[in-house]
């Protein structure tokens, strides 16, 4: 692809005239002169579906029809094998007794699990982003669950159903030991009911707050869910104890029967399909598109979910293929989560976990994610990270600047392969231009997806020149082949990361 056509920035005049005539439904997006399938839209898809695209991936995407690219990415993600057991030590079934003789392993394994997720986000991208979404839907917290083996089962479950059947997902989550511990299902017994899980099951996982259930339904639902046992003290396998099950009739949503975990879950989907489907479709809409829900679109998605017997993949595909999703007004309109800030910086310059990311990267990442407010397996509470503008305040924003700066200077600048990638990226994007203004304009495109104003653009050029005397640029002797070119890109990205535009995707 000739470099000249690479632009993530929509033509301004087109922007102005676009607003009235929107092709804006769940129908598949068909590229047109007014709404072209260009690098900007390919990048939009990659950012929303995963953690961004390399130059090469954008070019590959351009060669496909948008729907074909969505199919390719999602089918590949859905077909990935289940996560292999932890390495080099398989602790997936370790009990507390085993940890007792291995002081320090408890934390080591937790660190491994965090690093694993970071690595997956970088490598798998699409599926790892989906599991992060579901983690934030079905929240558990590692340090409250306490048992690593339970959390491993939870981690695997997120992968198992990431693109699977939502009804089965909810049911399996209700029987997952990490969730049983986190929301007290493990102490919910006949005669001593605990409403915690029953309430969140309806409020946060399926129907939405106050949306089609009563307090009495919560009480009765709790009785149906009794009998599950999981011990975070022992970390031994969880089980169903029929002697703790409330083996009496319950009345939920006005339906009476001796419901147990399975049948009570089925009842939700049977009695409240509209509420459940619209609730989960709305949440996915906010995740993929925009924080303000478009009711008609969400209803359409909900219908698709129901029509496909709660299979998630058709609905997700429908949304990401839609002309609605590719509307100009949604591009670069979402505030990045901390992960969406971090991973794409690395992903888009071709980093992968095996060759580029040492554990120390991920330790630093954990440290910074803590400051930015998104450590995996540690959301603030059962409602998850609220996201959107809650990500940004004066403290997290300035920490985002610092973090991006340190990521570039402490890690990327010290990795020769990535420095080479940065050089190649700049060369490929610009046809190996030696004009700093051209290079910066293109890299601003690539990293920010939108133009900077004149003042900040001029500053960006100065940062890119990075102290190299002007004479080397004006006499034509400087070019991207110079030893310091990768460092110049690094200095530029550090500056760009401080632009408000960089916080949007």
């Amino acid at each position: 692809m000739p470099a000249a056509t690479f632009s993530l920035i929509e033509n301004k005049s087109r922007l102005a005239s676009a607003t009235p005539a929107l092709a804006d439904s769940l129908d598949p997006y068909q590229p047109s002169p007014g709404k072209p399938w260009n690098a900007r839209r390919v990048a939009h898809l990659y950012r929303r579906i995963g953690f961004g695209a390399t130059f090469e991936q954008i070019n590959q995407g351009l060669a496909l029809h948008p729907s074909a690219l969505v199919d390719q990415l999602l089918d590949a993600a859905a077909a990935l094998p289940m996560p292999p057991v932890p390495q080099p030590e398989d602790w997936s079934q370790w009990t507390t007794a085993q940890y007792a003789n291995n002081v320090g392993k408890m934390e080591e394994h937790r660190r491994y699990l965090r690093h694993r997720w970071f690595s997956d986000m970088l490598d798998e991208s699409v599926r790892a982003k989906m599991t992060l979404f579901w983690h934030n839907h079905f929240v558990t917290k590692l340090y409250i669950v306490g048992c690593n083996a339970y959390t491993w089962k939870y981690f695997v479950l997120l992968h198992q159903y990431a693109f699977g059947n939502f009804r089965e997902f909810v049911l399996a989550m209700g029987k997952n030991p990490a969730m049983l511990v986190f929301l007290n299902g493990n102490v919910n017994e006949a005669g001593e009911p605990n409403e915690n899980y029953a309430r969140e099951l309806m409020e946060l996982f399926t129907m939405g707050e106050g949306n089609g259930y009563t307090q009495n339904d919560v009480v009765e639902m709790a009785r149906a869910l009794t009998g599950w046992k999981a011990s975070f003290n022992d970390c031994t396998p969880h089980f169903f104890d029929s002697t703790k099950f409330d083996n009496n009739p319950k009345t939920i949503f006005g339906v009476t029967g001796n419901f147990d975990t399975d049948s009570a879950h089925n009842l939700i989907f049977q009695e409240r399909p509209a509420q459940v489907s619209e609730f989960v479709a709305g949440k996915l809409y906010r995740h993929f598109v925009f924080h303000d829900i478009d009711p008609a679109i969400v209803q359409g998605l909900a219908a698709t979910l129901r029509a496909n017997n709660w299979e998630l993949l058709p609905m997700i595909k429908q949304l990401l293929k839609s002309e609605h999703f590719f509307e100009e007004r949604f591009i670069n309109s979402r505030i990045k989560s901390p992960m969406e800030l971090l991973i794409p910086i690395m992903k888009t310059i071709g980093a992968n976990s095996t060759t580029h990311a040492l554990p120390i990267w991920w330790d630093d990442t954990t440290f910074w994610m803590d400051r930015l407010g998104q450590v995996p397996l540690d959301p603030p509470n059962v409602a998850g990270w609220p996201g959107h503008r809650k990500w940004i305040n004066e403290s997290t924003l300035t920490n985002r600047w610092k973090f991006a700066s340190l990521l570039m200077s402490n890690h990327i600048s010290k990795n020769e392969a990535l420095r080479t990638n940065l050089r190649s990226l700049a060369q490929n994007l610009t046809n190996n231009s030696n004009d700093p203004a051209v290079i910066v304009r293109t890299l601003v495109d690539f990293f920010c997806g939108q133009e900077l104003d004149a003042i900040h653009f001029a500053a960006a050029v100065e940062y890119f020149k990075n102290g190299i005397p002007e004479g080397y640029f004006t006499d034509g002797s400087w070019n991207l082949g110079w030893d310091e070119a990768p460092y110049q890109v690094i200095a530029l990205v550090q500056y760009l990361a401080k632009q408000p535009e960089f916080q949007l995707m």
Partner: protein
Amino acid sequence: MKHKPRHGSALEHGPAHEQEHRLWSRRDFLSASGLLGAGSMLLGGLPVRAFQPTPLLAALTAANWDDNDHILVLIRLDGGNDGLNTVVKRGSSEYYNLRPTLAIPDNKLWALSTQYGMPQETNSLQPLWTEGMMKCIFNVGYPSPNYSHFRSGDIIVSASDRNEVVETGWIGRFLENEYAAFLEAPPSVPPALQIGVQTNLLFTAEEANMALAVSSPQEFYQIAQTGQLFETETLTASNRDQELAFVRQTANAAFRYAETIKEAFNAGKNDVTYPAAPNSLSAPMSIIARVIKGNMGTRIFLVDIGDFDTHVNQKNNHLSLLTQLATSVRAFYDDLAHGNSGLEKKVLTMTFSEFGRTIYENGSRGTDHGAGTHTLLFGGGIGNGFVGDYQDLSNPDPVGDPPFSVDFRDVYASVLQDWLGNPPELVNFVLGKPRPTIGGLLPTTPPALGDNGKAALLGHNPHATEPGAFAIKYALTHGSAVRLQLLDKAGHALRTLVSDFVPKGSHTFVFRPANWYLPPGTYQYRLMANGQVFQREIRF
């Protein structure tokens, strides 16, 4: 006589060039973070926005130099300024032989003295010279110079030895000690202001960058006029612009200097016309004058002017740069002195450059990277004259340079001690080792004594329960070697009460005079910590 080009010449990208860029590549790329200030740290798990400064931190917020109102403006001549053509040794046959096309004929000079002159293009400086507002320090440099722009530039601003890599700058180290609680209780006035994007190492301290770095005069005007870092007025109602507005507003709120800048900019004004474009110093110098006149409170300024790397066709290019420098500095001082304000006497301006250039010209009517170069000082009341020895132009080694005359760190020592009024202990701390000051270079200012209300030495009280004892309280924002000494009225140290490494935090030393065999009387006690020195009187 013709010499081969060398030292990173633009003409021949030889090994020297490669070497230079490799060295430079080792730099840390932590870029100027002055824009955000330090207010981004969490304190005790609380984001700073939720943090209310305690009275102690509030007291530590201000710098400890209020009784010295001297200001320092640094002008960096990027690329390596040619000293020989900046201040010319008049009538030197060596000079004219070494530089057959570049030498400036005597009739194109204005005379600083019978021996030295400057190009006529800089004659706007002549009044400064004759009125005793200008000095020239000849051939400033350091032993075994490094000819890489970047490495040598780092040496110059970090004040390191040639083979020592220091990741902080001399001004940064100085300011970190002036603003002992910079991170915990960020000041509302930027300790330093840099206009331009380069050389942020100068302001880098151990834990923070002490300067507000504004990338361009245009960016400064925007901040000064709108009181905002990022403008939000022109954003539309689109999804994207609404989110962008939110992020921009948050960034604006995090940028705590905006109001200070706006106020100072509005309170000050330029009373002279600054040189017209193209002049890359004109706008930055006018901004600095304006905020000084508007009482912003910032004491250190840095501006850059580039293109001094004159390997090719130097003559007119270099003269144009010197013209920009001369006319801007002249306008700056005229502006400061306007209306007999006396401000010009409070502002010292100093040029510096990573190195000088070869004393001979190369094959392309330019000069290559050389050793020492002249430093120019401007300011009311500094007098005029020359310091140090001009480069020895006789019998030059074709591959060497005349050795430097004045070590750049001695210039810094003089500025820190004599101009900024710091005690020698602090100067030694900032420069890493004792450096002599240059006698007579600058008018001396007595060192400021620690101010009880604003310093890390909080003072003393009679001990609450122990008659005759005193509680001497001090606070450290970093762990530090601490010396607490008792002095007589004349300032002679009598006893060392504490000499130990003390962790950060607030501390109380219980002073029992009897235990130290001290007769009743009036004494002083002195705290030296974190490179700062504070002194107070005590009676018992």
